[in-house]
């Protein structure tokens, strides 16, 4: 009986011109989003590869004093995966490049949002935004009259008289509409899997998880909107209620949650953060001595170690050593303050994860970004790797100054490609799917809980369907 109802639901929808038209619009949008995304992706990928190659070439071919080279520095680029095309996530806001420079701990920079105002405010058209926001509307138009129309049409009585159970009616409606949404969306997912399989096979598992989560999300939405139709007095009411739910859960609540998280755990401004680091390195943190005091201590330690009386008697370049000592302290101060900020962001993230239990939209939003590798966790993971590489990079240059060779005391001490070539390039591997799953486990539990709860409501809702 469920099958008969489901089949009839599909047939009726296919004969409904509005439905067919909406599906075509959805597909056109998917094509536009994919095409636009792919164009950006190839362009950005090309630019990045070129820049990377250029910086590396400049780096290895230079002939310079190691410390000048440290000032000259380099840039690191966040790898751009095909998946980030499906969900750009935070990438537009966090930036994708990292500056490596002496005496300075950088943040990620050059975010797309910095120089393209209106487009970002309006919201970029990505596959994720289509699936998260537009598709629910399509589901509403598909489901709002699924049960209420049977009642208005007086077919409900006839269905029951023929022996149909109310619960079978609901299951049939859910199954039929789910299959329809499947017909519309599964080809899109298959194309994504194919594209990823051809270009970056290592991301197949992520793409699969991405697709499955969306398919679960659609099932939750379909059952909710079928219930709304079943419980509403009229189709008109069902449509209004459904749209109201959409506005509340997909538009308003996410904004409110972001506002709340920001209010509860507000972050310092970039200016205040930089100021704190500057003051921290100058005056010392956690009871450390100020810069001059630390310099004096380090000098006397070093003199004692080599058993000499003055810096000029040292067999090494003390300036190089001292600069590294300063770098070490800068890193300590930086990590000290960054830890506080990161803790607050983690708390904000936790608020989002917990509130996903009351809003499935929040849950799919996080999972989608997580599997696309464009969420905060991936951002911070990249940043940590970049920062460690930077510290190692600067250390190597400072030590070259300190222990390099006998010419270290000369003002025009220079090293060439032979040395710079030995400094390995930055290589970053995105964490595996399991890592992303674990980081967003609560959002995943929330989605699964929503699914279990909505589907288990069938027997309860079916008792409440009014006949007249």
């Amino acid at each position, binding site marked *: 009986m469920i099958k*008969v109802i489901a089949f*009839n639901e599909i047939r009726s929808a296919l*004969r*409904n011109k509005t439905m067919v038209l909406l599906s075509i619009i959805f597909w056109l949008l998917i094509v536009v989003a994919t095409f636009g995304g792919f164009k950006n992706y190839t362009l950005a990928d090309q630019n990045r590869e070129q820049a990377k190659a250029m910086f590396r070439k400049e780096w290895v071919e230079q002939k310079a004093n190691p410390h000048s080279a440290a000032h000259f520095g380099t840039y690191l680029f966040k790898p751009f995966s095909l998946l980030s095309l499906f969900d750009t996530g935070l990438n537009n806001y966090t930036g994708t490049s990292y500056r490596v420079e002496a005496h300075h701990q950088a943040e990620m920079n050059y975010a797309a949002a910095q120089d393209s105002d209106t487009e970002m405010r309006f919201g970029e058209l990505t596959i994720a935004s289509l699936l998260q926001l537009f598709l629910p509307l399509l589901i509403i138009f598909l489901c709002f009259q699924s049960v209420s129309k049977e009642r208005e049409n*007086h077919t409900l*009585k*006839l269905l029951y*008289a023929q*022996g149909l*159970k109310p619960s079978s009616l609901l299951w049939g409606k859910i199954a039929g509409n789910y299959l329809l949404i499947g017909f519309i969306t599964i080809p899109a997912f298959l194309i994504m899997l194919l594209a990823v399989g051809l270009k970056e096979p290592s991301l197949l598992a992520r793409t699969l998880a991405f697709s499955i989560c969306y398919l679960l999300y659609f099932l939750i939405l379909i059952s909710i909107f079928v219930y709304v139709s079943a419980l509403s007095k009229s189709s008109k009411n069902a449509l209004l209620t459904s749209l109201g739910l959409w506005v509340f859960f997909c538009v308003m609540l996410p904004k409110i949650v972001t506002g709340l998280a920001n209010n509860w755990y507000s972050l310092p401004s970039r200016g205040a953060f930089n100021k704190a680091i500057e003051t921290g390195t100058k005056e010392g943190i956690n009871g450390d001595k100020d810069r001059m005091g630390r310099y004096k201590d380090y000098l006397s330690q070093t003199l004692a170690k080599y058993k000499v009386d003055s810096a000029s008697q040292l067999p090494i370049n003390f300036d190089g050593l001292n600069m590294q000592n300063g770098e070490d302290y800068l890193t300590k101060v930086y990590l000290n303050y960054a830890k506080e900020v990161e803790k607050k962001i983690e708390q904000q993230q936790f608020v989002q994860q917990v509130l996903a239990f009351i809003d499935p939209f929040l849950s799919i939003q996080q999972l989608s970004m997580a599997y696309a590798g464009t969420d905060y966790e991936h951002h911070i993971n990249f940043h940590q790797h970049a920062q460690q590489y930077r510290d190692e990079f600067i250390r190597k240059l400072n030590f070259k100054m300190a222990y390099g060779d006998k010419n270290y005391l000369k003002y025009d001490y220079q090293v060439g490609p032979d040395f710079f070539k030995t400094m390995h390039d930055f290589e970053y591997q995105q964490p595996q799917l399991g890592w992303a799953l674990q980081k967003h486990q609560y959002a995943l539990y929330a989605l699964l809980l929503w699914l279990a709860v909505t589907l288990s409501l069938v027997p309860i809702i079916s008792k409440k369907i009014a006949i007249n």
Partner: protein
Amino acid sequence: MLQAINLTKKYNDQLALNKLNLTINQGDVFCLLGQNGAGKTTTINLFLGFIAPSTGQALIYGTSVAEDPAVTRKHLAYIPEVVMLYANLTSIENLDFFSRLAGFKYSRKELEKFLTTVGLQQEAFDKRMGGYSKGMRQKVGIAIALAKNADVLLMDEPTSGLDPKATNEFTELVKELGKQGKAIIMATHDIFNAVNVGTRIGIMRRGELVHEMSTENLDANDLQKLYLETI
């Protein structure tokens, strides 16, 4: 086959049906007369199990409708006042769909036969029902009831809004069904038609069955007089 024992339905303090006692056997065509709100539709809805009785019982083949509607619904077919069905399906598709729900899978030929039996013209079979007249829709409704092969037919004002020719065709069909041994309850406002098609007549007023009689030797004019006196 069909039995009501002290069947009562209250909505808050309003008595929609008061202690109805009724037995309908094979071959009976029982016509319920009465004004709107007299309890005709309530009686039919109670037998269908769409509403639960406040007290008393509605039995079909001895099984209580309230206790096991899944079993009792197997025995009955229902023809509503407004047969709407699905406007974007053809009559064949509608008939096929509702028959499948009742557990019957008919071939195209069998489906056509049902539609022919109720007098639907062949050209209409594959046209979407959105363009059908009320009479044509009613015929498909009857075909659905026939195809269910049920012993009991419940009809709620099935002839309202039908033109005289369609009413006549319908009447003949119901008579034929009665002869085949079905038990039929038909709520109607059409006194002359009731005398013509029914084997028994019941007149209801404010939830009570006031008169019950056989149509043998019953004259429509006498019945009309009685009806007007009753209400």
